[in-house]
């Protein structure tokens, strides 16, 4: 009897686990996790579909294909992208998507997923899980061995995998622009003429993460120029320090601490004396630090200005709209990575699958394609940004625009034209103008 009750309860729990799963779109068979997004965006999407569009004859239709996507963590950004892929692009492009479970950064798990993707009949793999160029090598090699095309949002060097025939290219933020954008954020947020002490969370910069190094360098350079600081070492070396270090600035009343750690507890140790009133975060770690910063603000009744990388999500919306004890927004400036980056990985991969890889190679080698990141300073501006990617009318790339990145549909496509197109169409100004969000 007891066993029977346990079995019934287990079955009930399992059934309850599935109650939140979306059933709005029968095409999204592989979309198991998007439902956990739990936002009202799902309803908006179904209402926004224009049925008349599907009646139009299509000039060209690609053969159905399957794309496997390895996901490290299901956060707001990946969930939005998953929804966009499975509920929108899937039917528009005749592509079936197979998403992995959360793979973390474990290479073995990623290899297993690639092998299973091959068994499922996938023609290509997109990697949204591995963050270092070293970790990507075995994954790319495995794809090569199985004849699967491969693209990733790798942030490091492409050299170690560029010799592989099935690597179609990688996407990343524009390194040079990233540095300038972070410098601009520092100048904007600290424009009051006062002196501010900084904790710079460099995240993975010490491991060579290019984006995080560029962001950290941008912030340190802006500080140097703003207060006439003289650092004792090369700025890039400082950005890549691997221990919590208060660096020499040459100016007594400007303190800078490099914080290459990832936990709120460790940040709390640095901030506890209330000496620092600026926290700049070079990676998407703000959520880990948010509560700690708030606690310090409350204890010392001070305003800590926050400049950070983050994603477009309701959580970021809340951060912009939550006031600290001094009545200022918790978040002062946000560097936002958009879904444009992950969409670009799909465009690269499909060019490979459709047999047009030559069009996107540069000098016969896979290239890095850059995507625009966005900056936001105010809750009002974020209110508009938060509408992006919530429905068919607000996707960064609608189906027709996406098809322009595929040689199959756009015969004029070259690597250069794709680079320019991606840069232009992923910019905030362009998206706002095209989606009527101004």
């Amino acid at each position, binding site marked *: 009897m007891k066993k029977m009750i*346990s079995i019934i309860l287990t079955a009930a729990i399992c059934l309850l686990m599935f109650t939140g799963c979306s059933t709005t779109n029968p095409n999204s068979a592989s979309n198991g996790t998007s439902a956990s997004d739990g936002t009202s965006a799902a309803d908006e999407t179904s209402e926004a579909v224009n049925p008349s569009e599907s009646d139009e004859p299509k000039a060209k239709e690609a053969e159905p294909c399957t794309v496997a996507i390895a996901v490290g963590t299901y956060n707001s950004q990946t969930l939005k992208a998953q929804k966009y892929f499975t509920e929108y692009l899937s039917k528009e492009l005749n592509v079936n998507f197979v998403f992995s479970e959360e793979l973390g950064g474990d*290479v*073995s798990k990623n*290899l297993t997923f690639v092998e299973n993707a091959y068994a499922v009949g996938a023609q290509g793999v997109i990697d949204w899980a591995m963050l270092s160029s070293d970790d990507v090598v075995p994954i790319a090699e495995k794809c090569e061995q199985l004849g699967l095309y491969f693209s990733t949002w790798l942030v490091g060097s492409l050299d170690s995998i560029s010799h592989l025939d099935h690597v179609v290219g990688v996407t990343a933020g524009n390194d040079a622009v990233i540095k300038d954008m972070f410098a601009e954020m520092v100048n904007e947020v600290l424009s009051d003429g006062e002196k501010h002490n900084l904790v710079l969370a460099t995240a*993975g910069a010490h491991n060579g993460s290019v984006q995080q190094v560029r962001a950290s360098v941008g912030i340190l350079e802006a500080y140097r120029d703003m207060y006439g600081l003289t650092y004792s070492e090369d700025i890039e070396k400082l950005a890549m320090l691997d221990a919590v270090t208060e660096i020499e600035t040459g100016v007594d009343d400007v303190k800078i601490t490099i914080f290459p750690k990832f936990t709120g507890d460790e940040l709390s140790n640095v901030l506890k004396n209330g000496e620092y009133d600026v926290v700049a975060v070079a990676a998407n770690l703000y959520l880990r630090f948010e509560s700690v910063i708030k606690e310090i603000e409350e204890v010392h009744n001070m305003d800590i200005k926050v400049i950070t990388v983050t994603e477009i999500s309701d959580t970021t919306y809340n951060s912009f709209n939550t006031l600290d004890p001094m009545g200022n927004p918790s978040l002062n400036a946000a560097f936002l990575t958009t879904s444009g980056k992950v969409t670009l990985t799909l465009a690269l991969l499909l060019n490979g699958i459709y047999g047009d890889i030559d069009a996107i190679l540069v000098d016969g080698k896979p290239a890095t394609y850059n995507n625009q990141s966005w900056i936001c300073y105010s809750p009002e501006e974020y209110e508009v940004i938060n509408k992006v990617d919530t429905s068919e009318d607000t996707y960064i790339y609608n189906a027709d625009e996406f098809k322009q990145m595929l040689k199959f549909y756009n015969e004029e496509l070259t690597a250069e034209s794709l680079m320019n197109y991606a840069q232009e169409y992923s910019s905030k100004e362009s998206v706002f103008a095209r989606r009527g969000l101004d």
Partner: protein
Amino acid sequence: MKNKIKISELLDNRYFNYYLPIILLFVLTLFFGVTTGGKFLQLQNLQMILNQALVVGIVATGAVLIYSSGNMNIAMGGSTAITCIIAVNVYLSTGSMLLMFLTSVVVGIAFMGMFCVLSEVFKLSIVVITVLFMTMLISLQEWIVGGKTLKVSYESLKGLQQMNVPILIFIIYFVICFILFECTKLGRTLKFIGENKDCARQTGIKESAAVTIAFLVSGLGVGLGAFSIIVRASSVGGSTAGGLNMEVVLAIVLAGTPMTGGNKSKIFSGIVGAVMVTMLNNGLLQLGVSSIYIQAIRGVFFVIMVMMSGKRPEVLPVKDMV
């Protein structure tokens, strides 16, 4: 009622019980073979399943010895990860693949030996020691590696991969464990301890000696598993072997070794369970089931198997167990 009696008789049948996991494995293979139109049974796919299951299979095979005695080791994942880290560091310092292999083996055995020694010194249950070490080792892994990746050149490991070294390692290790568990007094002693610890003690069996040997043999498995991870992934990071603990327990229990140990323990549980879990993942994915549902299905399987294996014998150990 009549049917019920027949099923319970069948479940109590010694041979049926022993070979049930293997029968289940064949049923699963057949099911996925038919439902995927034969795609599942393609040689390359079966090879991939075996390769994916190897690391868990190796570590779990050793762990069966521990579980059979009614003990648990939930620091297998952490031990394997730290072993990987140390072995890779040795390779990076010396450039010797042989030294990396030997280091893996020695460190793996040393870890398990250490658990036994600490258990004796502090008079704590070995299970408690492994619980303490589980979190310590994970922290240690994060502390040593941080966000970095320790990388062994993919090119230098390609040869080992092509020679199917992990498969050879598994075969040799499995034979060793099979002989120890099924053909020597050690296996029978461990099962006896798992079946009834007090009875075993009163029979004159030295529990700590048998359990220590079980831990040392499983330490060899940890070392070989660590080496196989390095060969397969060619890198070690903060999340290496992260889910290994759970996968090992899942594999052992799925393949019919009770969590309480004892007479029903089977040495092939480790590899059969690991293959079964991998098959479930692979087959369900081929049938178009989302990864998220696969995790849930795996969980349900696990719960059912734990329930099925939970029944304790109602008699004292019989003669052939000693």
